[in-house]
């Protein structure tokens, strides 16, 4: 009776969790759902006279494997969510048909494979579950067991080799980076100096305060575009900042001339650029995104900034 209750509760939970795993948009939720399934299964193992496996399931699966999944999810980006639009024609339909068919067939096949009441493991585990398993592992299946150890070592090594990134060229020194910056300055007029910090000294301790130039005017470089955009939409953009941004916009308009039509940057482009104002994190990005990029691109970049306002 007790087993029945346990089974039905856990079965419902695990099936719902499994469906959740499949249908949730965010990978993190999927991972958590998987954890639920695994824990449920661990309990079911325990119910079915497999305490050792239940423990291993929790320790190895829920403990180690799930953690690994979560780590990788962090690496890849936690908030990256799948688009739910199916791109392969007929894939979803056939997948569901196949899934249903498989479920029915398996249930019919394996379910019918059981004939008569369960024998139970009492006879097989007279010395207790763990010692009995240990006996099997270290006697009859010792060779397979040793091979799995080799497999694990190989897997560990393989993971290291795969995850390791060979540096193809020498690490750029400060001199190289400096040279790159000035080359960029020569080509595109990009400011070689670090961006000025926000004007957090003196009166304010807020990141939305622009830095002031020696003549007391606002340095447009120090204005965070996101915040400016937000403030503009809220109508709380300080007038001196708004003026500076307008001047800069006018100057850029002149520089761009009339040849360039206003083109709205696509989402992809903006994503690739890593946002208008943020510096990319790695050096590759510097080389690819800022310095070597041809002139037209940087113009379009600044245009995208105006579009934001």
């Amino acid at each position, binding site marked *: 009776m007790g087993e029945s209750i346990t089974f039905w509760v856990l079965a419902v939970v695990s099936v719902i969790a499994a469906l959740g795993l499949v249908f949730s948009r965010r990978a993190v939720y999927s991972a958590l759902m998987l954890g639920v399934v695994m824990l449920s299964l661990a309990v079911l193992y325990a119910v079915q006279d497999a305490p050792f496996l239940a423990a291993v399931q929790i320790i190895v699966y829920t403990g180690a494997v799930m953690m690994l999944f979560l780590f990788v999810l962090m690496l890849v980006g936690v908030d990256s969510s799948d688009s739910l639009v199916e791109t*392969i024609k007929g*894939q979803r339909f*056939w*997948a569901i048909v*196949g*899934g249903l*068919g*498989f479920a029915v*067939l*398996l249930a*019919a*096949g394996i379910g019918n494979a059981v004939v008569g009441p369960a024998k139970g493991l009492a006879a097989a585990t007279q010395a207790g579950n763990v010692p009995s398993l240990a006996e099997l592992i270290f006697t009859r299946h010792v060779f397979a067991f040793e091979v799995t150890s080799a497999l694990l070592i190989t897997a560990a090594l393989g993971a290291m080799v795969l995850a390791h990134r060979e540096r193809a060229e020498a690490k750029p020194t400060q001199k190289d980076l400096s040279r790159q910056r000035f080359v960029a300055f020569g080509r595109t007029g990009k400011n070689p100096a670090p961006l000025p910090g926000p004007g957090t000294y003196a009166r304010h301790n807020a990141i939305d305060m622009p830095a002031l130039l020696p003549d007391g005017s606002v340095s447009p470089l120090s204005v965070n575009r996101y915040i400016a955009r937000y403030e503009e939409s809220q109508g709380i953009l300080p007038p001196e900042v708004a003026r500076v941004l307008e001047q800069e916009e006018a100057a850029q308009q002149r520089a761009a001339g009339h040849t360039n039509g206003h083109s709205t940057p696509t989402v992809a482009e903006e994503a690739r650029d890593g946002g208008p104002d943020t510096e990319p994190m790695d050096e590759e990005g510097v080389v690819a995104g800022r310095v070597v990029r041809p002139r037209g691109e940087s113009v379009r970049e600044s245009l995208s900034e105006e579009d934001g306002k």
Partner: protein
Amino acid sequence: MEPAEIIQHSGGAIGAAWLMIALPLVGAAVLLLGGRRTDKFGHLLGVLMAVASFVVAALSFAQLLGFAPGERRRGIELYDFIPGLAKVGLLVDPLSISFCLLITFVGSLIHIYSIGYMAHDPNRRRFFAYLNLFVAAMLLLVLADNYVALFVGWEGVGLASYLLIGFWQHKPSAATAAKKAFIVNRVGDFGLLIGIFTIFATFHTLAFNDVLANADKASSGTLTAIGLLLLVGACGKSAQLPLQSWLLDAMEGPTPVSALIHAATMVTAGVYLIVRSGPIFQGAETAQLVVTIVGVATLLAGAIIGTAKDDIKKALAGSTMSQIGYMVLAAGIGPAGYAFAIAHLITHGFFKADMFLGAGSVMHAMNDEVDMRKYGALRKVMPVTFVTFLIGYLAIIGFPLLSGYFTKDGIIETAMEHNAILGWLAVLGAGITGFYMSRLVFMTFFGAKRWEPTAHPHESPAVMTWPLIILSVGAIGLGAFLVLGNRFMTFLSPAVGAPEEMPSFHPFSLTGLVTLALVAIGAAFAWVKYGRAEVPAVAPRGSFLTVFARRDLYGDALNEALFMRPGQWLTRLAVFFDNRGVDGLVNGLAAGIGGTSGRLRRVQTGFVRSYALSIFLGAAVLAGAWLVVGNL
């Protein structure tokens, strides 16, 4: 009278008859392989080999005369050529020895003449090599004792003819003429080959001895077929209708070649073939009739062509066609005509070679000008050439007591007895001969000078005139010698048989008189038009008939319309069919397979999930199948 048995022979000059062939062959080989090293003495070696061959022929002849007439067919075994098909041997009998003497004698003279004629040609050595090759092949043709060896010689002379017509091969016209000659000859060879196959299928042997002795046992249908097929071969080689078109173009070759090959010897090979295969033709009357018709048609056609040509060599070539037509006519009549055919062949060999060489001498003097309208009044500047040419001319038109008078009139008389229509047509041909030959002589040697300003005619050197003189001697006396008293017919009878009743020579028969009269009328007409009157320097347009004759009776036009154009069309069609049809099918198949796989490979989308889906569905299907099968 039936031909005599062949007696196997060895020893003496006849036993060494193979030398006749071998000597010029060696000459040709040495000259061709020796290359420029033999330039200095090449012509001398060539002459030497031809003369040596003549000596062997003469000695053989002498030895042959030593035998009783019934034992004058001597066979010499050489070697097993194609085991099971043919052994090669030589057959020295009155027929072949007559040819040998003609070939080697006229051949030697023309070799000598060529020393002078080709003196300034840088490739004179090669010319002599080819001439030697020709002599060897021609001798093989006439000496062979079976059809295969005959065919080898037959093609050999064809090759030599090809090489010599195209001797100046940098001239496109010469190269084309050579090719044309060879191909038209091949059409004839096609017939000859099938004739030979039929002979082999019928008799399972190709030796003259076995075939001809047993010819009467074969059905007349078979014999007619063989006869007609051999005739096709003869037509090709002897430029008889309808395969005549190559001979006029063949005049592109050097003049000695025209004299030797295209007048005296090679073109008569067809006559030889018909006479040699006599027993076959005698068993097939239809074939004989066709032979005579072809002969008459050609003798008229050749004569008509001869009347309109301004090119001296082409006029002579037309005359050659015509004269060979006479020979074929005689050969078609049967044993009564054989002797006359061969006798005319021999005398024609002399007087036509004489005239061709004379024409060559004239051309030599006139900067290789061949247009008779630019000649005239040459008799004074070239007296020897003129006199010898005149003798040849008188001989061919049948001037009484000269060679042609005896041999050609013999043919006409025989034809008249055989079939009156053929006879009268032959007489008509003789009349036309009188006209065109006179025209030729008058235009060349009489009348006003119409020379090109650059021409400075002069008599040719002795090395060229002496052969002319010797040949003209033959042209004078040979006919009388051969025909009077049926000397030649008697001599030839062991080889080819003879009529029951020897013909007797009537100097003033009705036919003979009519012929003479017609010839005289023709000559007089020519004198009126070309001797006395001014000859225009440019040929007048002429009547339809003139144009008809000038354009070779539209023979070339006919060939072009019937064979060349459809042939070209067929060739293009076949190439197109091969590229698009046969190969197109193959490539289409390949393209089809390629296209199908190109479409099929689209299944490999590269999306892992597609693959997984197919695996999943496949597994489901397998599971289902397993369940179904398991529950059955």
